[in-house]
């Protein structure tokens, strides 16, 4: 058997059998789905809240109570704030809303107050409800006709349409943006984790001194490539397992989510004008097979490129703690695209986005982002892959020169100057 494949196979089997691999493969999708589902579960908690309303205006209380979600129990009271505080503290009330008389003044200096035990606007849309009601009252007081008041209270719907060569799609901009973020972070984390794993593997072989035995059997390049390919296959297996598990869980959880998800008509204040999209439906609407294929290809390309660099860094040090300074120039270019993520997702067709999505060090992350948010011409995707492949060939040649010198060097901590010398003399 080819030695590179033999080494790759051994690396692959060794790691895929480890507890770490099995735990991570199962835990990550669970966490991912949980992070989606838990907020929804919390959101759908429809046990109504009990709120006291102290209406000093004598006119607004009823309107506010109506504007609040249906399942809210509103208690009109004129108890002093101190006693309401006590009731909130011992749990008899969830909150207390105080509407001072001066709210009706059209100048609007007065402030409403809501007492509760913390949380971000626990009564979703409370602020909006109060605002609507007060504005309406002020407008009426100022003599506005009911028609004018209605006109200002009316909602204006805005339909977003995503234009692409295949025809116009519905409003999925938010879904596409979420997807872009998700895929970019997944590639970023995967490249970092598996690249580091390659580095750690190289350092371990060097620290164990096994490398000299292996180097007397195979060429250093075969050893390095075997390790890179074997760990890459581990990464790919894990990503595919994650995708399959998440897809499975989403399908299984879909009906559950729909059941649990709040019905906008009942849970939302009337006329609030906010739509809560179903994330699962949103994602499934924008994930195309082409995107999945591109995602896998760009992960492979990006991983190969960076893991070769990580292998070179690993070969130059005796122990992991020494790798800090040398790995910075490798880790930094992986992190930079993440900072450009929002810009590229916002304007996927700008020159900056085009350049960054073609440049091999950033294309694995940013081309996938562009593909997620817009319709990227096939030639650009192909060009990015070709450039990535070419960069890999160049980088692995350089990395191999550092590697084959580095693995036999012990003692002195290598500097960038040393690496440069190894590159030239090896």
């Amino acid at each position, binding site marked *: *058997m080819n030695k590179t494949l*033999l080494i790759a196979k*051994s690396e692959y089997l060794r790691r895929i059998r480890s507890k770490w691999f099995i735990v991570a493969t199962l835990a990550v999708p669970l966490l991912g789905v949980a992070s989606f589902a838990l907020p929804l579960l919390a959101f759908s908690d429809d046990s109504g809240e009990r709120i006291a309303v102290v209406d000093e205006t004598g006119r607004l209380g009823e309107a506010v109570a109506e504007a609040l979600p249906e399942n809210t129990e509103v208690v009109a009271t004129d108890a002093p704030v101190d006693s309401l505080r006590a009731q909130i503290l011992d749990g008899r009330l969830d909150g207390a809303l105080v509407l001072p008389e001066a709210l009706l003044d059209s100048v609007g200096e007065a402030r409403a107050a809501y007492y509760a035990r913390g949380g971000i606007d626990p009564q979703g849309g409370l602020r909006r409800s109060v605002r609507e009601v007060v504005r309406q009252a002020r407008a009426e007081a100022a003599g506005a006709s009911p028609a004018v008041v209605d006109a200002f209270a009316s909602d204006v719907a805005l339909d977003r349409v995503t234009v692409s060569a295949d025809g116009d799609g519905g409003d999925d901009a938010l879904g596409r943006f979420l997807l872009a973020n998700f895929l970019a972070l997944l590639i970023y984390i995967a490249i970092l984790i598996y690249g580091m794993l390659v580095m750690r593997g190289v350092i371990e072989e060097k620290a*164990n001194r*096994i490398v000299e*035995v*292996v180097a007397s*059997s195979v060429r250093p390049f075969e050893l390095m490539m075997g390790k890179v390919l074997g760990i890459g296959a581990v990464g790919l297996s894990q990503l595919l397992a994650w995708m399959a598990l998440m897809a499975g869980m989403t399908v299984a959880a879909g009906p559950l989510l729909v059941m649990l998800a709040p019905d906008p008509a009942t849970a939302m204040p009337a006329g609030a004008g906010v739509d809560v999209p179903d994330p699962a439906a949103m994602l499934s609407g924008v994930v195309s097979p082409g995107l999945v294929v591109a995602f896998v290809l760009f992960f492979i390309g990006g991983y190969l490129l960076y893991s070769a660099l990580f292998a070179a860094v690993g070969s130059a040090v005796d122990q992991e703690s020494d790798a800090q300074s040398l790995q910075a120039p490798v880790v930094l270019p992986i992190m930079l695209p993440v900072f450009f993520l929002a810009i590229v997702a916002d304007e996927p067709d700008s020159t900056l986005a085009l350049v960054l999505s073609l440049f091999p060090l950033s294309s694995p992350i940013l081309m996938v982002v562009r593909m997620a948010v817009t319709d990227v011409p096939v030639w650009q995707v192909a060009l990015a892959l070709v450039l990535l492949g070419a960069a890999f060939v160049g980088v692995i040649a350089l990395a191999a020169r550092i590697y084959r010198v580095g693995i036999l060097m012990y003692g002195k901590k290598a500097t960038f100057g040393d690496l440069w010398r190894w590159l030239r003399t090896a």
Partner: protein
Amino acid sequence: MPPVLCLENVTKRYGQTVAVDGVSFTAEPGRLFGLLGPNGAGKTSTIRMVTYITTPDAGTVTLGGEPVGPPTQARMGYLPEERGLYRKLKVGEQLVYLAQLKGMSEAAAKTAVAHWLDRFDAASWADKRTEELSKGMQQKVQFISTVVHDPELVILDEPFSGLDPLNADLLVEVIGEMRDAGRTVLFASHRMESVEALCDDLCLIAGGQAVLQGSLREVKRRFGRDTVTVAFAGDSGWLGPLTEAGAVRVLSQSEGQAVLRLGAGTPPRAVLEAALAGAEEIDRFEVHEPPLVDIFRQAVTGSEFGVQSSELDRLGETNSELRTSNSELR
């Protein structure tokens, strides 16, 4: 083609340092070749070129007439001075994997590994993780990994370091078998005594250069029978006048025994006469060839290439340490 290992004018530089400087030697099949020299003399650098881990800047290395390269790597076994194994792998898997890297099929590797584990009374370790083994057990595993693919050339760098006497004996036995089976054995060490006891041929290197080589017998003969050992009872005062006159030099001295190098023109009987006159009793008097460590010292200082005196001191120290440990063993 018999597996003759041949180095011709091999030179290796690391930056400004010349690690190996025009070294030539030939190691014959069926013989044990000792590559000797102090730490830093260039032994490991030389071995790395033989094993094709590195390549020489000048000169050639051939095995059985074929320049070394990936095909010859499969026909060599290498036990490096710094031992190393995959700590997490099970012993059996580890040996099969390392044998496969040498080009064996999985099935053949499994058979050979089973045979060797048996031979070393280690069959029960096959399913243990390597890190669970004691250091001595790991040494055995490492040695098996060196010979499991039945190599034509076996390279052992300081094979006895860290071995207890029983395992050292086992190793000597196996090395002897390989020699008898027509394998070439290259044995690198800075411990002159173990080399002296085992090797047929030797090459002494210092400062990257070969300063002396040939068969052990020939090398010793070349230096002549100029060494005398006297075992005696009583005061050693009789030695004083001899050394002061420059007739002898004391190589080593302990209570009741002295090893002396005869000066030019000093007949052995002059020493015997002085001893008879000065010592209470003579237990033993022997004229013999110098010990290898002394030959090495002479060869290095006598050569035009100076060797750092500190290197020589180190050499002397290790050898006296070895002597101490040997006498403890007895």
